[in-house]
């Protein structure tokens, strides 16, 4: 198992990054740090996909110099999934940032727990 870990170091790094991002999104109090965590988490997944989709000595599936053999290119689907994922991740980050701006304008703080305590005090 240990040997596999070393030869698949790309996937291992992706998993570690996923953990870091997940932990940040879950545990940080600061909203901006949470969003950074979200982005690390998503990027780790794309790294994993890209790493899995790559086959050594092959190139991206764009036909150049008339080479049409399937052996020359990698599978395009993982790359397509990464692109789709990036679009989703961008829109979600934008939405989170806009919520953060709204909260900051109202409460002049980025700390989610402090916002909660203030809301309880307001008793809305």
């Amino acid at each position, binding site marked *: 198992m240990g040997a596999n870990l070393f030869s698949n170091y790309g996937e291992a790094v992706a998993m570690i990054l*996923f953990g870091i991002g*997940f932990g940040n*999104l879950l545990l940080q109090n600061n*909203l901006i740090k949470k969003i950074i965590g979200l982005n690390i988490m998503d990027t780790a997944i794309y790294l994993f996909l890209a790493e*899995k989709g790559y086959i050594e000595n092959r190139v991206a599936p764009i036909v150049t110099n008339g080479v049409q053999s399937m052996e020359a290119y990698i599978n395009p689907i993982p790359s397509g*999934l990464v692109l789709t994922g990036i679009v989703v991740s961008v*829109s979600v980050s934008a*939405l989170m940032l806009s*919520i953060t701006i709204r909260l900051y304008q109202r409460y002049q703080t980025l700390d989610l727990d402090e916002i909660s305590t203030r809301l309880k005090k307001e008793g809305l």
Partner: protein
Amino acid sequence: MGLIQNFPAVSILLCLFAGIISSGLKKQAARYVNTILISGVGFLSLCTLMYILETGEAFVYVMGKFPAPWGNEIRAGVLEAFMALFFCIIMLLSLAGGRKKLADEVEDGKTFLYYVLMDLLLASLLALVYTNDLFTAYVFVEINTIAACGLIMIRQNGRTIEAAARYMIMSLLGSGLLLMGLCILYDLTGHLLMSNIKEQMGWIYLSGQYKMPALVTIALLSVGLAIKSALFPFHAWLPDAYGYSTVSSAAILSSLVSKGYIFLLIKIIYRVIGFEVFYESRIVDVLFAFGLMGMIFGSISAIRENDVRRMIAFSSVAQIGYIYMGIGMGTQAGMEASIFHILSHAATKSLLFIAAIGLTDVSGGSRQFIELTGSAYRNKWAGVAFTVGSLSMVGVPLFSGFISKLLFAQAAVQNDVKMLPALIVLGISTILNAIYFMKTVIRIYTPVEEHKYESIAFKNMKLYVAALLCFIILNVVLGVSSQPIVDLIGQGLAMFS
């Protein structure tokens, strides 16, 4: 290929286009478009359901030109079409019941956006129900999350924005795990279409290889969707999101959005992983345990709550626990009970939310129990509807909640190991349900000496009463003629494989 086979794809596309068109319309027009859209999609789903019942088999609709292992597909069986129809009915009624409140609580210039979000939400729900491709499912899960976040936030006050932030964070954690699970699954099997993955998973399971990655995948998918549907330890965002958003949003979030994710999970269990493989993985036991805890702790939190809307929200936590308990039993009967409870809870919870808003409106807008005293006399229809909803939640015969409890109990008896904990917790949870719902019903029917608040006349709330009546009828129909629906669910589950 018959004309009707196009309907699922057409209804998803119609919703997306309606969303785009509505963003350029005035609020009245956007509302008409939305109402026509939901009724139209409901009608299309009904046609699809009839067609499938007639032919007796599910059909696959190929999206685009690429055939099976490469292209994207939509698949419609009995259960999918029935769910789509049911979602449309609930959405239409919830919007009708909360329309007046929506006008009060949302800025006038932004009302049309509410209907845009609703169109997109319906599109994503339909896509989650119908899709046969896992990555498409992921994309629509995210669209669903974004639309739901908008629905919470459209009523602008500090509480809702904070609730939306918390909702987004939990949802994003869930979808991160879901996406990771999908990627490992794709890595294991090399496919994205559900039917192909299932074939490969069967091979992997038989060959005994890759036990660990398969287990991790199943865990990631289940936990990701469980977080998104607010299973017990992940429910912290729920009371604020349901308690402070505008009433149609609360009804739709609790009865449709979380149910969409649960339906996707059930679909993944049957159509992607395979029921036997899922059962062998022991993840079912984890879901079972958290379901049981949710049933108890959700109810206890609801008893301690002093705000009627938040009480109903906490009751949702308990009901989601019931659904996961059924899934966790790992039997066909448990799954049927869970799906029936999805229907019954959707019909009852939206009724309760909409009835509660009628009661709080005649109590000076206050949601504290002390102010609600006697409110059922000031708004008779809401009082009756709230009582019906409460009785159904507690599980009194005639109403839908009774049938789902009965089905859960029957399913529990078939499972030797899990029978005892399931039945004990079912009993405790029913008593706890009875405590907080009956407490509320007694309070709203307690007469008051001095008349502090005005009562509301019938002519000011015709649409509201009509929506409540439809909900009550739906509840009684589910409760009285449950057998055909249970048969339909069984048929649909058989069609999954």
